[in-house]
């Protein structure tokens, strides 16, 4: 551009543009659309998408740019020094009206029965920028298939489609699977699957979210609710340790869907189908609802929460008095919040005084916080990535998308190898790369360490995929034998399976189980025997299962979507969870139950155990968590590790 601004800014790689009379300096290569967003100027878009490359097919974002003979698409035009953009003049208003009129020519306008009605860009922009009436002569619109199932999750309505290509580009650019294609041409163009096959991707659930209209919809959400009556709870997906941010949308005390909540550092707004469609399990009515006492050989009876807590304390004290504090085993879960786990760890070590505490079955040796040093977003910065085995991506599927992004945007080489691949071979395969990421499953930590040690000539960082939504938090909180909160060394104790075996053999006389713990329930026979043999089994659980069934004192817990707290994902990011549903039980939340239990057992300096207060205390005690705050990463310096 020949025109220079009044005061050319410093050469900082930024350029000055004027949009609607307001100036802004943005980095070179910024799109006009993003520059306008920076100024808070709204430009309607359909085909453009923050995570996809521009195609400029919908023509909705056309704006007037001085010195250009024709209106230019804001989504595909990069800014230049001195560019003068107008988005609010009569010309732009008219062309927006024109494009919307065209879009509605063949749109079925079945908004009342469309799942997207209420959160539809076509509807919203038509109200905001549209012409109000159509001048299309009343002849037949072009008709296509409606309610066409593309898979068990996705339904397609070809009539509602405005052919923005987002779904096609999503498959091209985000997953690389290319399952959706365009067929025919002109007004007959339609979106369909490649060769008419069913969608097989693990990431189909993102399609309805990239779709700006109601063409692609969730079958699980079909006609379940209108968007305006949904209660939205920003939370974290409970399916794996990746920690994807979600909105749990509920209506009438039922979660109706999980919607993505863009966090560029974690999920980049994409969810996997396993996580997204896991919501029905949280609506189950199979719940532990009342505190119960079931003394061995006595009669089962419902009690109040206060009575149950006193009974639990009585039983535990009796075991400690009789057999010593080492006769109590404590089991947490990777589904609990950091606050609960922190209290559980303190309860076990400081109040009861037992070293036998764990949250999973397998032993966990030589735990090194450095094995989580590679952040999720850092994957994009790596030149070479080594994925050991299929487990990491099976455990945390969204990882696949981040790896693909690194491949596509940066040209990174992704080596997907056997989980026992020869370290020296891996080292030669990644030779020449400056930054290398090694990603392994929790069960393959030792081998990943050997691989990382074998690679020379580049900065190597490791990422370990932990199990369970808060598997990482459980380790940080010290719900491990031999490691207290903050990886401080503690007297060594039994790991999960040993605790169960000891209880089954009678070496441990009491169990305190904070559930729900799916890992525990895979233990099988030994779990049954342990629960049957122990004198006292105190269970705080939300689901009626093996543990709840064998409890001597049963205290109802709160499900993941019924409580406040924080969870830590595999890279150490501490994220808030919030209740999306009212609690199924009137008993106090777990943190308060644990605090009361501690108080009954003689702890003096514990407060009432409100989650927020526990969180404050936790952050005061653990510096990395204080630094992480809400949404930051808790990183542990190597020296802190014993």
């Amino acid at each position, binding site marked *: 551009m020949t025109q220079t601004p009044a005061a050319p800014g410093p050469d900082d790689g930024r350029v000055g543009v004027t949009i609607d009379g307001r100036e802004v300096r943005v980095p070179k290569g910024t799109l006009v659309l993003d520059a306008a967003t920076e100024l808070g100027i709204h430009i309607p878009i359909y085909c453009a998408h923050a995570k996809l490359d521009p195609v400029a097919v919908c023509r909705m974002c056309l704006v007037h740019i001085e010195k250009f003979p024709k209106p230019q698409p804001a989504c595909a035009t990069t800014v230049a020094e001195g560019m003068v953009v107008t988005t609010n003049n009569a010309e732009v208003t008219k062309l927006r009206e024109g494009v919307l009129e065209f879009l509605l020519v063949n749109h079925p306008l079945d908004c009342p029965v469309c799942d997207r009605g209420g959160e539809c860009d076509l509807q919203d922009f038509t109200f905001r920028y549209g012409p109000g009436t159509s001048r299309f002569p009343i002849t037949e619109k072009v008709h296509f298939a409606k309610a066409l199932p593309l898979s068990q999750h996705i339904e397609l309505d070809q009539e509602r489609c405005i052919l923005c290509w987002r779904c096609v580009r999503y498959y091209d650019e985000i997953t690389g699977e290319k399952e959706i294609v365009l067929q025919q041409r002109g007004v007959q163009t339609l979106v369909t699957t490649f060769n008419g096959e069913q969608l097989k991707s693990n990431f189909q659930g993102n399609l309805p979210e990239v779709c700006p209209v109601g063409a692609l919809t969730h079958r699980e959400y079909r*006609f379940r609710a209108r968007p305006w009556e949904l209660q939205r709870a920003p939370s974290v997906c409970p399916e794996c340790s990746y920690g994807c941010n979600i909105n749990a949308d509920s209506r009438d005390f039922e979660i109706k869907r999980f919607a993505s909540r863009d966090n560029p550092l974690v999920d980049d707004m994409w969810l996997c189908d396993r996580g997204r469609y896991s919501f029905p399990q949280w609506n189950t009515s199979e719940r532990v609802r009342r505190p119960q006492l079931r003394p061995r050989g006595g009669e089962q009876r419902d009690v109040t929460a206060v009575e149950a807590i006193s009974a639990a304390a009585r039983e535990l004290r009796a075991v400690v008095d009789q057999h010593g504090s080492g006769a109590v085993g404590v089991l947490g879960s990777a589904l609990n919040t950091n606050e609960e786990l922190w209290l559980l760890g303190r309860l076990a070590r400081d109040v009861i005084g037992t070293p036998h505490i764990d949250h999973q079955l397998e032993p966990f040796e030589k735990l090194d916080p450095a094995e989580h040093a590679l952040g999720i977003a850092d994957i994009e910065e790596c030149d070479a990535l080594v994925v050991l085995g299929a487990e990491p991506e099976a455990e945390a599927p969204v990882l696949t998308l981040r790896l693909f992004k690194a491949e596509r945007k940066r040209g990174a080489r992704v080596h997907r190898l056997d989980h026992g691949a020869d370290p020296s071979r891996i080292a030669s395969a990644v030779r020449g790369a400056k930054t290398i990421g090694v990603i392994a499953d929790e069960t393959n930590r030792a081998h990943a360490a050997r691989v990382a040690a074998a690679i020379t000539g580049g900065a190597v960082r490791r990422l370990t995929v932990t199990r369970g939504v808060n598997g990482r938090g459980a380790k940080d909180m010290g719900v491990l034998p031999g490691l207290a909160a903050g990886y401080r060394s503690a007297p060594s104790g039994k790991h999960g399976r040993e605790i169960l075996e000891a209880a089954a053999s009678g070496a441990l006389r009491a169990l305190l189980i904070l559930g729900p713990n799916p890992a525990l329930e895979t233990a099988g026979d030994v779990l049954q025997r342990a629960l049957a043999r122990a004198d006292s089994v105190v269970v705080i659980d939300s689901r009626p299962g093996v543990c709840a069934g064998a409890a001597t004192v049963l205290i109802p817990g709160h499900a993941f979507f019924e409580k406040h707290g924080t969870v830590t994902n595999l890279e150490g990011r501490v994220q808030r969870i919030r209740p999306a549903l009212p609690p199924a039980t009137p008993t106090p939340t777990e943190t308060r139950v644990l605090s009361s239990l501690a108080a009954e057992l003689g702890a003096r300096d514990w407060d009432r155990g409100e989650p927020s207060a526990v969180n404050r205390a936790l952050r005061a005690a653990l510096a990395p968590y204080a630094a992480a705050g809400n949404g930051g990463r808790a990183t542990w310096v190597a020296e802190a590790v014993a």
Partner: protein
Amino acid sequence: MIKEIVQGMAFTLKQMLSRPLTVQYPEEQKPVPVRHRGRHILHRYDNGLERCIGCELCAANCPVGCIYVEAAENDPANPVSPGERYAIRYEINLMRCIYCGYCAEACPTEAITLGPQYELADYRREHTVVTKAELLESWPHFAQSRRPPSPRGAGADQTGREEIDPGVSPRLAWDLVDARRQSGQGPHAGDLGIPADVPTVTEPGTTRDNA
């Protein structure tokens, strides 16, 4: 003084001979005005399919939030309503309802209207939450449950809507009347000149409740 007494007595005598205004309710009932807004009715098409598509716009438009709708997908082989969606549950809390008629206004298929029924008292609070089964026109004898058409024809009112082809939905008819008003023609200026190809939301010949 006497004059006043005589005047008073005369008035009394006159009233004694005239027909009493009092209606012996509930044995006798006064006719309900045409546009009375009483309890809601969920309508059907003439082929028996429900008009309601479960879009919940009535609930969204309701100023007091007394409508609760749950939608479900139609079985194409045995549909409840035309199209993909129908209301599997439709409830109105009549205690909360203010009978404003906004639900009828919001309805895209004219499935809900406010009917003539005003006897809504009940001994139990729960009974005042009416369900879909109670609200829906009965089938196949639904014609009997409908109010007899007003003598002035469907959709009649003071603006001359009686002249409009009963096949045209009241909403469309309003637009036509408005258009004619704006063009300077009186509402009674004769044929409205509805072009033959204007789509009718209602099937021709359907009598409509337009309370």
